[in-house]
Structure formats: structure tokens, C-alpha cells
């Protein structure tokens, strides 16, 4: 084995890259930009393509209709050319993701909610799950730097967080929806704060300012929602990184010494190719990453790559999610954007064991969309009763429902912390494959009793607040299946190689030059949207890799 001084020389197509990144989503993009700017040769393989903002439907009248199919976040339902299927027959939550440069953030709502101090110490504080090997304080400088790259909008001083640097752009308007939601929480004396969003209110780092079109979750046609195809890849490519799209990675290759040597992938035309590299970083999300490690099993690593702990694929966390739709007897213009979070509440975030569960949940208020939104939620027909009679949902009741709800409703999203359990896991399906014949993942996932109690408690409090604020109708949608936006935990980070897959720097314990920088490394999930912490962690790990480049063991 040798030590390598990672070079800054440019690569030709067949040259061994210094670093191969698999996946051009939030974490892979951060790594690519910063490694390339440090003079390191970077190649990134992305199974999807560079997004074309002109294809986003937000400016067209059919936006709501096509959002329910072509831009649906569930790849099994969307069934796009670059999606891979996922067996979810034994999963209570359906995973949501998008293949493309920018990753699943292409369809996210941009809720920017960094993990809280307590999230890194749940074992110490609550006696459950595991502490992280790093702390909130260690991550904060990297968070503040990432927020500048992302162009976060927000208002400083939120008492739910320790003091930190302000945001690079002012908070977006909370609108009539946010004002009404704040009135509801004020009526109870509960916490709220103007939403922090990865949606800039002013032009920033290649992004345009938000125009409040409200179609964030089907791709922003204004270039005003922060995704890394805009914020990071132009910098990475300018610095010399090479991005190969339409590339489905089949396996990570290793040598006799047990070091990673690159990856085999299937290109857009179906040809199998190999990209060699001195270091490999996987950034393929909490399902794609363990899938790839399991696919890479060989005689030296018969249970899958980096899996001596047996934990690859286990401890899947997806955040069971409930929604509360509240309707008011006044015009809230609730089709108007942004479709991030107008305000959020952390009132019930920290543990209070008298509630019958540990940990807690964040609430975020969102608009309700257009007239079809009166019967659906981000593409899911969640508000439809399968046992309803025709006249319950249609006829004069249809007009009544749209008249009552359209423009006058808002939707609280309740994200509860999902504690890790080894029985919740990602496996390889024995028969299902993607269109290139690569085995697809299969999920085993049940909602825990703790999550069930947590969601019920928060739903009840949320309804109380809505009624206190004057709601004329509330509808609770408990633990909706199509809500697995956050795919976490399947390659756990820790200090003990017997109980974790990677160390705090994302290096796998078993393969010294194989790294994982995505959310699969999270020991716990918090009760928050994870993109802020995923990107922050990726920056910290990338910086460490750059600093340690002289000492890095490579094939």
C-alpha cells in the first residue's frame, strides 16, 4: 500500500482520478466543489441528468396535474427513466427521492432546519439510541459556511437554537398563511419562528430571488430554490471537476489489499465502463448507499463492502410524518408561495417523558396549493377516503369542499424523530432490478411505538392550536405513507468499528480509502429536515480529507 499526495493535475477520460464521488446530490456536490477548488482531481458519477429548469411545470396551467405524476417524489410512482424501483411491500413509509444533479433536493421544499444540540446526545440525555461522535458546536462553523453557499433566507435570534451567525438573505414573507399560523400558536403561548428556507429572498450565488410562485416541490422554474446544480456545480466544474451523468454505478471495485480502486458503472447507452480512483466517496442517500455497498460484495467482503459490523443497510430512519390541514373562514391566499415553511414551531421538540415518549417533533406550516390541493397533499391523495360514496367527494360536496378549503387552508407538517432500530433496513431484492438489470433495494420498515405516540400527541396539540386560532375545519392525516423524504442511518457513524460503518470523518472502518458523506451515516435522525446537516457534515468531512491528503492511504 502506498501513501499518495493527491495531485491537482487535470484528468483525461482514462486517467485514475484522485477522488471518485458517486452521487451529485447535496453531499456529493459539496465534496466535489471543495475538493476541486483545493486542486484535487475529481470525477463524479450521477445516475440522473443535469436538470433543465424549462421542464419544470410551475409556470404552466397544468402544474398541479403533472405534479401528481411526472414530478411526484415517489420514484415507484413517478417511474422516470433514471429512477430505480424500490420494493416497499414491507415498508410502512415509502421512500421519496430524485435522480439528477442536485439530487432529491430538486423536489424538496427547502426547509432549512439544522439539527439541534440535543440531537447529538440522545443517549446521554434520554438513554436511547446513540450519541454522535461529534457535537453541535463542532459543526456550527461549517453550518455557517454552508448557509452562505446555499443562500439560506431567515431571521436570526430563534430561541430554539443557540446564538449563531445570521443568514445571508432576509427571511421570506410569512404571508397570510404564516400570520394565521402564528396567531394559532400565540393563542397557546407556544414557540414559533419565521421559516428558514434554502430559498433566497435576494439573488445569491447564482440563485434568483424567490418570486413566491409556490411550486417549489416540483422543481423551481425561477432558479430560486437552492439546489446544487446552481450553487455548487458551476464552481466545481470551473475548478476542474468532471461530472458524468446518466451513469449508474453497479459496484465499487477493490484490490487484493482491500482498498477501493474505483467503480464499475453502466453509461447512458448501456455500456459498462470503469472509473478508477485513488479514493471513493459514496453520496447516494440512505437507500442508494447501502444498496451499492451490498452490491459490491466479493470474496474478500462477502457480506458487502465495509460491512464487518453487519450494520450496512440497518437502522433505516425515514421520519414518520403526519399532516394537519386547517381551514379558516378567511382568505389566506394559500396557493401562494414559497412552498417552503412559512413558520415553524419547536415547542414540542425536546423530550418530556410525561408525554409517554422520548424525543420530539418539529412543525412547519405550508400553503395548501391550488384547487386540486383541496383533495391532495404534494401529489398524494391523502385526503381521499377510500370508503367514501360518490356524493361524499363529488357533486355539490365537491364544490362545497373547494369553496371551503381553497385559498383558506394551510397544512402543518409534523416531523417526529425516528429512533434507529436494526430491524428497519435496506436489503437487496432477490428478483427486482432497475432497467440496467442491477438488483433493486427492498425495505423492511415498521413505525415504532415511540413514533406512533409522538405523532398522536403532536397531532392533538396541533389541532388544539388551530382551533384556538379560529379554524373552522381540521383534518388529521396520521402517518402518511408517501412521506419518506429523509433517508438516514443505514451506514452508521461511530468510533467503534464493531458498532458502526464509518468514523466521524466518513471513512469506512474496513476500507481506508472508501468514504461515505451522505445522510446514511447519521447515528440518529433528529426530528428535522436533514439537508442542512447533511451538507454541513459533508463540508466538515471534505475539509478533513483535504487536510489529511498527504497521509491518505490509497490503492
Amino acid at each position, binding site marked *: 500500500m502506498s501513501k499518495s499526495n493527491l495531485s491537482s493535475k487535470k484528468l483525461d477520460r482514462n486517467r485514475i482520478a484522485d477522488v471518485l464521488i458517486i452521487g451529485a446530490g447535496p453531499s456529493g456536490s459539496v465534496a466535489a466543489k471543495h475538493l476541486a477548488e483545493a486542486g484535487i482531481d475529481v470525477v463524479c458519477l450521477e445516475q440522473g441528468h443535469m436538470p433543465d429548469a424549462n421542464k419544470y411545470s410551475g409556470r404552466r396551467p*397544468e402544474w398541479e396535474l403533472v405534479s401528481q405524476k411526472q414530478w411526484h417524489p415517489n420514484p415507484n410512482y413517478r417511474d422516470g427513466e433514471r429512477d430505480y424501483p424500490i420494493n416497499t411491500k414491507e415498508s410502512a413509509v415509502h421512500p421519496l427521492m430524485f435522480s439528477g444533479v442536485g439530487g432529491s433536493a430538486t423536489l424538496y421544499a427547502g426547509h432549512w432546519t439544522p439539527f439541534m444540540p440535543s440531537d447529538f446526545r440522545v443517549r446521554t440525555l434520554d438513554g436511547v439510541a446513540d450519541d454522535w461522535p461529534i457535537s453541535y458546536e463542532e459543526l456550527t462553523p461549517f453550518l455557517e459556511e454552508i448557509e452562505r453557499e446555499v443562500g439560506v433566507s431567515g431571521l436570526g435570534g430563534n430561541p430554539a437554537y443557540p446564538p449563531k451567525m445570521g443568514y445571508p438573505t432576509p427571511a421570506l414573507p410569512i404571508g397570510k398563511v404564516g400570520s394565521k399560523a402564528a396567531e394559532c400558536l400565540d393563542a397557546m403561548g407556544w414557540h414559533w419562528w419565521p421559516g428558514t428556507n434554502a430559498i433566497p429572498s435576494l439573488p445569491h450565488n447564482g440563485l434568483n430571488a424567490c418570486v413566491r410562485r409556490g411550486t417549489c416541490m416540483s422543481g423551481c422554474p425561477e432558479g430560486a430554490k437552492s439546489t446544487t446544480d446552481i450553487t455548487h456545480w458551476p464552481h466545481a466544474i470551473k475548478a476542474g471537476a468532471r461530472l458524468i451523468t446518466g451513469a449508474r454505478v453497479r459496484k465499487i471495485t477493490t484490490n487484493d489489499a482491500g482498498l477501493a480502486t474505483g467503480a464499475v458503472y453502466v453509461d447512458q447507452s448501456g455500456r459498462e465502463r470503469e472509473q478508477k480512483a485513488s479514493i471513493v466517496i459514496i453520496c447516494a442517500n440512505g437507500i442508494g448507499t447501502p444498496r451499492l455497498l451490498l452490491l459490491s460484495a466479493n470474496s474478500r467482503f462477502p457480506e458487502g463492502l465495509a460491512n464487518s459490523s453487519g450494520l450496512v443497510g440497518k437502522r433505516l430512519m425515514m421520519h414518520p410524518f403526519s399532516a394537519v390541514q386547517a381551514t379558516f373562514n378567511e382568505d389566506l391566499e394559500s396557493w401562494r408561495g414559497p412552498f417552503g415553511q412559512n413558520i415553524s414551531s419547536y415547542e414540542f421538540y425536546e423530550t418530556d417523558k410525561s408525554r409517554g415518549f422520548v424525543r420530539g417533533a418539529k412543525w412547519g406550516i405550508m400553503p395548501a396549493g*391550488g384547487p386540486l390541493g383541496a383533495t391532495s397533499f404534494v401529489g398524494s391523495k391523502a385526503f381521499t377516503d377510500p370508503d367514501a360514496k360518490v356524493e361524499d367527494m363529488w357533486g355539490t360536496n*365537491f364544490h362545497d369542499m373547494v369553496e371551503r378549503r381553497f*385559498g383558506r387552508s394551510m397544512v402543518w407538517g409534523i416531523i417526529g424523530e425516528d429512533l434507529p432500530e436494526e430491524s428497519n433496513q435496506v436489503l437487496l431484492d432477490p428478483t427486482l432490478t432497475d432497467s440496467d438489470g442491477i438488483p433493486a433495494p427492498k425495505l423492511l420498515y415498521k413505525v415504532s411505538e415511540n413514533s406512533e405516540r409522538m405523532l398522536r400527541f403532536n397531532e392533538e396539540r396541533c389541532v388544539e392550536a388551530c382551533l384556538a386560532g379560529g379554524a373552522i375545519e381540521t383534518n388529521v392525516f396520521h402517518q402518511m405513507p408517501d412521506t419518506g423524504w429523509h433517508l438516514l442511518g443505514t451506514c452508521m457513524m461511530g468510533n467503534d468499528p464493531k458498532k458502526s460503518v464509518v468514523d466521524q470523518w466518513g471513512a469506512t472502518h474496513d476500507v481506508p480509502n472508501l468514504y461515505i458523506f451522505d445522510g446514511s451515516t447519521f447515528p440518529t435522525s433528529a426530528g428535522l429536515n436533514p439537508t442542512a446537516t447533511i451538507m454541513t457534515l459533508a463540508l466538515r468531512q471534505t475539509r478533513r480529507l483535504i487536510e489529511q491528503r498527504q497521509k491518505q492511504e490509497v490503492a
Partner: protein
Amino acid sequence: MMSLIDDTRRTTFLGISDVLIPEFEGMPAASSVEVHGKMLDHILTLRPDLVEDFLRGLDASCGKDPEFAAKELNEGDHLALSAIGLVASAGYYMTPQVRNLIGYPGQESKPDTDPDATPEYVSNGMLQEVIDRGPIFKPTPLKSNI
């Protein structure tokens, strides 16, 4: 797509769409805004995935009383009725006439005129009440148990 929707199917759709979306308190029936005309073909072009369920429902309903047909589909082929209902309602709310009636301008661009202006929730003291209640996070313990 045009060849899939012959006059018989179009007439069947017209009947069921008026059951689902009738005239009511100033709102027009689906047929009044021509959801069964060019809009129908347009919707099916936008959502080809709906075609199979949609046509199956229409063919099973051909010649039947529309109200009875809708009830029969709801009980025996819910997916078909859902497809017919989505085609009807999507087309209905895409027509300018209906959008005007419900006060929906579509997902329009309406930028914030002054992002640096002091928000009302600050100037009216609402947010100060939240701040005055103090921090609500639990600080990181000095030592971890790992």
C-alpha cells in the same frame, strides 16, 4: 390520442363529469366549460398514465345512466373513477372561466417588493413575545456517554 376518444366515449365522459362536477351556486357544470372537448385530449396528453384506467371506466359505463355508472365504478373499479374524476377536475380548474370564479390566478410570480423591510410580525411585537419567553433548546451536555 384523438383516436382513443371517439364520440361514444366523449359522451360517456360528459355524462359522468357532470355527475361529479354539477352546476351549483354559480359554479358551472363540467360540461359547460367543455372539459369533454379539446381539454380532455389535452389532459390525457399531459397524463398518459391515466389513459388505461380512464378508458376502462368509460367503456364499462357506456350507455348507462351516468349517476348509476359513477356509483358502480366507485364500488367496483375505484381506480377508474379516480382517473375520470381527476381528468374532469383538472380540466375544470384549468379553464380561465372557473379560475376567475374561484379567484385563482394560477401559480403567479409576485416577488416581495422589499425583502429588507421590517416584517409586520416584528413591528407589531408578535415575535417579541416569543423571544421574551426565552430559549427552549437543551444545551449540549459537556460529556457524551459514548
